[in-house]
């Protein structure tokens, strides 16, 4: 057979080729054990001695050339195949994955705040929502018939008149201190209740996080440092803070804590009521009368306590304007967190 004719045939075979399988067919046809090249090689011994060397060289060249062509074709085919796949995947179609749920924003804030205090060595504990008058008021140095109780309007149980729905998380202070000796470093998240008519900024049920530290030498400076670390962790390192004297029956000295407005950075806007400051915490050194109620010696121990409204922080942090959204549980709201 004529070598040139074979070359043409190879070119022709390779040209029409569309698949790797067909390419394999071509490879077998020429390079197989009984392929054309083997047949050509087989004819060499029968050739005149003078032609053998030259013919042998030509067959070798043909073989090398064919191998190169097959290789090239294979690469081309492989590339074509990937291209073909890309055509069948429509990347515009939605991805396939199970849908995850969402934590309620209140839970997210509580987790974030508790994590910050855990870093400092605090333990997180909870307490019951139905409380005694003693734990909610008297033990916390809030006398029964006193104007200081006005801010703590309270739901009472019809069944037992001395029981109530806690109006703050502070009763857990009393519970923990009664059952444990110092040192203590505790945060308490939980639901609290006050008979406030529901509107954009009030809810009869809301959440607080209470915290307190008691040990031999806890100072007002410790209170400031702890709350500064907390506020900067939640609202960013750039905020400024101020501690304003205030009155809470269960702490003395007492302070309210403001941060510079997160929207206007202190210039004054509608969020901060043109004040430039946002109140976020109430705090103070635990009142000696509270220590006496739980059987601690106030000359031996000092401590600080603080409390914050979780909804307030959620509203500020997420830019929510109406507290009712938090309890409406609309999935379109919940799925944003």
């Amino acid at each position, binding site marked *: 057979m004529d070598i040139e004719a074979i070359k043409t045939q190879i070119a022709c075979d390779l040209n029409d080729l569309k698949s790797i399988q067909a390419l394999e067919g071509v490879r077998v046809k020429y390079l197989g054990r009984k392929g054309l090249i083997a047949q050509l090689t087989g004819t060499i011994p029968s050739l005149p001695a003078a032609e053998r060397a030259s013919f042998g060289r030509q067959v070798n060249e043909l073989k090398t050339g064919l191998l190169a062509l097959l290789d090239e074709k294979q690469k081309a085919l492989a590339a074509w195949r990937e291209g073909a796949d890309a055509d069948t995947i429509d990347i515009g179609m939605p991805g396939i994955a199970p849908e995850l749920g969402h934590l309620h924003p209140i839970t997210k804030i509580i987790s974030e705040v508790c994590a910050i205090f*855990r870093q400092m060595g605090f333990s997180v504990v909870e307490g019951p929502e139905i409380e005694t008058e003693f734990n909610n008021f008297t033990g916390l140095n809030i006398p029964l018939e006193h104007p200081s109780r006005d801010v703590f309007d309270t739901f009472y149980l019809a069944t037992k008149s001395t029981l109530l729905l806690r109006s703050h998380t502070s009763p857990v202070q009393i519970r923990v201190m009664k059952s444990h000796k110092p040192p203590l470093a505790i945060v308490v998240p939980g639901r609290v209740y006050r008979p406030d008519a529901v509107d954009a900024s009030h809810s009869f049920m809301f959440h607080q996080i209470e915290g307190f530290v008691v040990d031999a030498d806890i*100072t007002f400076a410790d209170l400031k440092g702890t709350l500064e670390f907390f506020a900067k962790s939640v609202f960013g390192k750039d905020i400024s803070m101020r501690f304003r004297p205030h009155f809470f029956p269960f702490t003395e000295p007492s302070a309210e804590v403001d941060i510079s407005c997160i929207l206007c950075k202190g210039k004054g806007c509608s969020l901060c009521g043109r004040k430039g400051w946002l109140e976020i915490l109430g705090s103070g050194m635990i009142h000696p009368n509270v220590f006496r109620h739980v059987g601690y010696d106030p000359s031996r121990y000092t401590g600080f306590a603080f409390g914050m409204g979780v909804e307030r922080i959620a509203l500020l942090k997420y830019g929510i304007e109406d507290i009712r959204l938090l309890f409406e549980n609309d999935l379109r709201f919940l799925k944003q967190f």
Partner: protein
Amino acid sequence: MKITYNWLKDFVAITLSPRALAEKLTMAGLEVVSFEESRGDFVFEIEITSNRPDWLSIVGVAREVAALTNKKLKLPEPQPLRRGGGHTLGIEVQEKKDCPLYTAQLIEGIKVGSSPEWLRQRLELIGCRSINNIVDIANYILFEWGEPLHAFDFDALQAGAITVRRAQKGEKIVTIDGVERQLNDDVLVIADAGAPVAIAGIMGGRETEVGPATSRILLEAAVFNPVVVRRGRRMLGLESESAYRFERGVDIAIVQEASLRAARLIGQVAGGTVSAAKISGAAKVPTRRIALDGIHLRRALAVQIPSGTIKGILESLGFKAKALSQKKYTVSIPSFRQDVKIEVDLIEEIARIFGYGRIPNTIPRIRPPAGPQDDTALNRSLKEILIGLGLNEVITYSLVEKGWVRTPGQSADKEIAIANPLSKDQTVLRTTLLTSLAQCVAYNLRQKQPYIAIFEIAHTYGLDAAQKVQEHYKLGIALCGGRMLWVGKDRVYDEAGLLHIKGTIEVLFERLGIEKDACRFVMKNVHEAEVYVRGTLVGTLVRLRKEMCERLDIKNKEVVEAEIDVETLLSSANLKRRFKPFARMPGITRDTTIVVKDAVRTGAILDEIARWGANSSKGLLQDAEISKYYKGEQIPDDAKSLTISCTYCSPQRTLTDEEVNSLHTQLVDELKKFFNAAIR
């Protein structure tokens, strides 16, 4: 409370701008919530905390300004009333505890008319309406000194006599606001010879009100018991500037001075003269003395304040500090500071004026373990698992409408009612989360949500059989609707049912380390299944009944719910993990389809297979699962077809086909025998 800049200036020289003053007051604990310029003056609105009745006056705030700005308070020594006079005033105080001090001045020859401009303006700036010169002067002194005064038309008082006594049941009075009020013996009144003429410390009566025709007044300046005033005010549902101050405590030492000033002003403005004065009670309280130790101060504030500064601060606030040694003082408390009772109260005063901002910030060294163990971690991981399963967390109200709907699975505890509910939607504490979650589902269906998968972890409340209050941590789950899932290139509608809830709970169990064979789901009726872990009931699965759906306006939708007792669940949790070697040899799977009667529970079949696997397969049966469930054509109506896939495997060797076939045939025979199963 409102005050004005110029009014303050009557008592203290102010060099600060109004804005700077507002800032200073705020940082001293008198939070200025707003201030505005008006009629040539500046009006500050200040929030006064309930412990500082002394700040409920211009004089009190001026004293604070003087202390904060190192200025002198311009205040003369308070003077006593000159008792006696031509007219004898009859004053009887029945109970000293109700009214420790009552003073009266008779002022004659007054001309009631409108107030001069300066007086009107000052009152109007702080939000007090001008009535007539006499009433205005009484109010002026109230705001300036914090001592509420009351002027009676003397000629309207029967027999010109005053009795301070408790009202009798059945007595009535028409107050100056025109409302007739029923009284009882909780209410302290001022009465003349016949009837009550004022509610003591709260509001005057219309009968004896000063009017245009009044020419003689009895000017009352007194101190009433804070608790009595508070109780009376709450009983009557009344608020007044006067009651506000008496409830918080009025300084007994300035009562007479305030009355004298009022009389002097009346003389100037309305032309009257004092013709008699009478006092009942003691005009002084014993001075309280408190020891202050500089070491305690330093220990509380972590800052060294020089003793000169300590003394200076205390004296500027009206305290008298006597140094006993370099660090110890005896501090005399002025009568207007009844709130200062113990040493820490003094420490707060010093810290406040020194400036909270000047106290350093430190982080306390917390010595672990600092208190009880952190018990919220499991609760948090529960939530993480649930959101991983596609459920969204909700928070619903703990208070619900009484007897709204009873759902299956509700606890046996009795509902606890609220004594003072806000509205009828929130009258009792809920005994189950299921109703609230169903409401949540209904709400989201109304919002056209096609698939609702929610959970809540919260307390439920109730009275147990022994009438004891119980509070339980519950997990509630609700599913409704369906979602489109991709299966290969097809979308399949997957509608949530009881098995979806079951699956969710099984994942929870698995994650909490509760072994599969420790849990049992038992159908109680078509609407309800119970969940047991090691024989203990931990919760219920529920399909909402039709009537409940109708009440919630849920149409043509199935709502499935679960309620799990979190404490019981977590007490069964086992979070310890130990590695168990697994078979690396490939397993051999055999599928068998059996047909059994519907009455045969699938769970029982799986249990039997597991039992057989443990006892008779030499540990080679690794897993058995239902891979197909079928009812319909070619199957009797009262039967179901189940395809069971069994995987056999040995950790040591590769099993042979013959071995597996022989084992599997034994299993199939077992199933035939046990469940009367037909093999297909």
